[in-house]
C-alpha cells in the first residue's frame, strides 16, 4: 500500500468517525402547524448549531393526535426526544410522576426571570422546574364589527354577563346568529364553562375543586357556572346544528360573517380565512376583541385570563446541551422576532411591546397585565377529567344534563383517577 492511498483511507476513516465522536444530538419534537412559528424555530436551531460546534439540534414534527398517542411509548423507548412539546397540566404531571422528566431547577434559575412568571409556574411539578415555556395564549370573544353595527351593539358596553345576554338578544332580534361554536368537538364549548367558573369562583376555584374542598367539583361555583351556561344557551344563540359543527368549520363560519362572535384562542385569526367558503375570511380591521364578561357577585376579575401555556419539557436522559439550547431559545431577540411577525405570543417578558398587529398586541398586553392566568381546564386537569369537562359543557348547554349532574360527573371522573 503506497503512502497516498494510506493517507486517503485514513482521511476517509477520520471523516466517518469524527462526527460520531464529537456530535451531541438534541432532538426536539413538536406539533406546531403554524408556518411562521416553525420557520422561526428552525432558524433558532440553525443559529444554535452554527454557534456551537459539535452540537446538532434537530426540530422534528409530529401531527398533534399522533404525538399524543405515541409519546407514552416513545418516552419508554430509546428513540425518545430530548425536548418535547407540552401543554403543561395533567399530562405533564403524569409524565413527571412516571419519572420521565428531568429536574432542571438549577439550570433554569439562570434565565427563568426573563420569562412570564405564570408561564414558568405552569412548568413546575412539586416545586421543581421540568420545562421551559415559550408561548402563552388567551381565549377571548372575537367579534365581527360589521354585524355588531348592524344589530346596533356597542362592544364597549358589554362588560357584565347581563350586558352580554342583552347583546345576544339584540343580535338575534336583528337576524344575526350571535355565537358560533364547534361543539361537535366539544372542547370549544368548555371555554364558556371554564370562564364562567373563573368569573364566579375567582382564582382559587379550580385549585380548590381539585383539592376536594367544599365538595370538590360539586361545589356551588361549578353548579352556578352550569346554570349560567344554560341561561345563555336557552336563548338559542348558537348557529343551527352546532352540535355537529367541527372546530375548523366554525372558524370558517366566523370568517364568512355567518355569526357575530366566537369564543376562541388566538389561532382563530389564522384559521378563519382558510376555512371560510369565500377563502378570504374577514379582514383584520373588521375583527374586534371582547374580554369574557364579569358575572355579578362573582369573585373573578375582568382581567383574569384563560388560555394555553405551551413549553418544552426535558426528558430524563437529555444531554446538558438540551437545557443550554432552551436558554438560547428563550433569548429576547427571538421573542421580539416572534412578536414582530405575529407568529405567536412569546412567554418572554416585554415581548408585547414588539407587536405591530393590533389584535395580537391586545392579547399580549392582556397577558402581560393578567391578574390570574389559567391554563385550559382540560389541559390542567389532564385528559381523563378534562374530557369529561368538555362532555358536560356541551350536555349542559344543550339542556341534556342538569348543572348539578354535570358537576357530579366531573367529581366522579376525578374520583376514578
Amino acid at each position: 500500500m503506497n503512502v497516498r492511498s494510506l493517507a486517503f483511507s485514513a482521511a476517509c476513516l477520520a471523516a466517518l468517525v469524527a462526527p460520531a465522536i464529537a456530535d451531541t444530538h438534541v432532538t426536539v419534537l413538536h406539533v406546531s402547524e403554524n408556518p411562521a412559528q416553525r420557520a422561526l424555530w428552525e432558524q433558532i436551531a440553525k443559529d444554535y448549531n452554527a454557534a456551537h460546534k459539535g452540537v446538532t439540534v434537530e426540530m422534528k414534527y409530529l401531527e398533534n393526535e399522533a404525538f399524543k398517542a405515541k409519546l407514552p411509548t416513545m418516552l419508554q423507548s430509546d428513540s425518545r426526544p430530548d425536548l418535547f412539546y407540552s401543554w403543561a397540566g395533567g399530562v405533564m404531571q403524569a409524565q413527571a410522576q412516571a419519572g420521565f422528566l428531568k429536574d432542571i431547577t438549577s439550570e433554569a434559575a439562570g434565565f427563568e426571570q426573563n420569562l412570564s412568571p405564570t408561564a414558568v409556574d405552569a412548568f413546575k411539578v412539586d416545586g421543581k422546574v421540568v420545562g421551559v415555556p415559550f408561548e402563552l395564549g388567551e381565549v377571548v370573544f372575537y367579534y365581527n364589527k360589521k354585524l355588531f353595527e348592524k344589530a346596533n351593539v356597542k362592544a364597549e358596553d358589554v362588560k357584565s354577563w347581563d350586558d352580554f345576554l342583552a347583546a345576544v338578544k339584540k343580535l338575534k332580534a336583528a337576524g344575526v346568529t350571535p355565537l358560533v361554536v364547534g361543539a361537535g368537538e366539544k372542547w370549544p364549548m368548555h371555554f364558556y364553562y371554564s370562564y364562567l367558573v373563573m368569573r364566579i369562583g375567582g382564582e382559587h376555584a379550580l385549585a380548590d375543586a381539585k383539592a376536594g374542598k367544599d365538595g370538590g367539583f360539586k361545589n356551588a361555583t361549578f353548579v352556578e357556572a352550569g346554570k349560567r351556561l344554560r341561561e345563555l344557551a336557552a336563548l338559542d344563540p348558537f348557529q343551527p346544528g352546532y352540535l355537529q359543527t367541527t372546530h375548523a368549520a366554525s372558524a370558517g363560519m366566523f370568517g364568512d360573517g355567518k355569526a357575530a362572535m366566537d369564543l376562541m384562542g388566538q389561532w382563530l385569526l389564522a384559521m378563519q380565512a382558510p376555512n371560510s367558503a369565500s377563502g378570504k375570511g374577514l379582514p383584520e380591521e373588521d375583527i374586534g376583541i371582547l374580554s369574557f364578561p364579569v358575572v355579578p357577585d362573582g369573585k373573578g376579575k375582568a382581567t383574569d385570563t384563560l388560555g394555553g401555556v405551551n413549553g418544552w419539557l426535558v426528558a430524563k436522559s437529555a444531554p446538558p446541551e438540551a437545557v443550554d439550547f432552551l436558554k438560547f431559545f428563550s433569548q429576547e431577540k427571538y421573542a421580539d422576532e416572534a412578536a414582530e411577525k405575529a407568529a405567536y405570543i412569546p412567554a418572554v417578558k416585554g415581548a408585547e411591546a414588539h407587536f405591530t398587529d393590533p389584535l395580537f398586541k391586545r392579547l399580549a398586553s392582556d397577558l402581560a397585565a393578567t391578574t390570574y392566568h389559567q391554563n385550559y381546564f382540560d389541559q390542567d386537569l389532564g385528559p381523563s377529567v378534562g374530557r369529561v369537562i368538555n362532555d358536560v359543557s356541551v350536555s349542559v348547554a344543550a339542556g341534556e344534563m342538569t348543572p348539578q349532574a354535570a358537576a357530579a360527573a366531573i367529581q366522579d371522573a376525578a374520583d376514578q383517577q
Partner: protein
Amino acid sequence: MPPAPSSFVEPRRRMSVNGWTTLVVFLPPALVLFTLFVALPMTEAAWYGFYNWNGYGRPEKFVGLKNYQLLLGNAAFLRSLLNNGLIIVVSLVVQLPLALGVALMVAGRITGAAWFRMVFFLPYILADVAAGLIWRFMFDGAYGLPSLVTGALGFAPYYLLADKTWAFSAVLIVILWKYFGFHMMLYVAGLQGIDKSLLEAAEIDGAGPFQRFWRITLPLLGPMIRLSVFFSVVGALQLFDVIVPLTGGGPFETTNTMVSFLYYFGITRMRVGFGSAVGVALFVICVTFAFGYRRLFMRDD
C-alpha cells in the same frame, strides 16, 4: 380389496424424519410472530385491564374488576353495544337481501353487467375515513342532502348528525352504502359457480323462476351466504374508521361503536387500564361469535 399392510398406515401416525424437519424449520417463525404480535399483546391487555393506569410508567394501582364494573355501568358503553347490535341487524336484514338481489341482476350476461358491478363495488374500495368525511358533508343541514328536501318544502334546515335520536341512522346508511358492494361481489362469485345445467334441468322440468331461485340458487349459495353473514358480523363488531370522521361518537355519545368507545374513552382519555378492559370485552364477544358461528353454521363449508 385386501387390507392395507400396517406399514402403510404407520407413517401417517408417527411423524417421519422429513415431517419433523419441516416442523422445526417452518413452525418457529410463525409461532414467534404469533406470540409476539397476537398472544403477548392480548395477555398484556388482559393484565392492564385490572389496573387503573394512564399509560405512563408501569401499572401499579391494582383495582381488580373495577374497570369491568365501571364499564357495565357506563351508559355510553351500553349504547355502543346497542349500536353494534343495530349494525348487525341492519347488515343481516337490509344489506344482505339487497346485495343478493343486486347480485342476481348483475351476475348474468346482461349488457353493462361489468360496469354495474364496478359502480356498486366502488364505495368499498374507498378508504373508510374518506367515506366518513364525504358523508359528513352529504348530511350537512345547510348544504347537504337534507337541505334539498327542507329547502324544497320550505322547512328549517335539518341537521341529522346533531340529532341524538337519529344520528346513528346516518352511520347505518353509510355502512350500507359502503359495504353492500362487497357482499354483492361475494354473491356474484357464488352465482357464477353454480352449474347452469341444474337450472336448465329445472326449467325443463317446469320450475318457475321463483322455484328455481328458492330450490336451486339459494341452497347452492348457502356457503357464500354463511360467509357473507360472518364477514358482516365481524366487520360490524370492528367498525371504527367510518365513525370517527363522520360523527366522532356524538352527539352525546349516541353513535359510538365498541371500538370507537375504546378509542375515545380509553386512549384519548389516557385510561389505558379501562381501555384494555373494553378491549377484553370486545375480544370475548368476537371470539365467542367466531367460534360459535363456525361450529354451528360453517361446519360443512
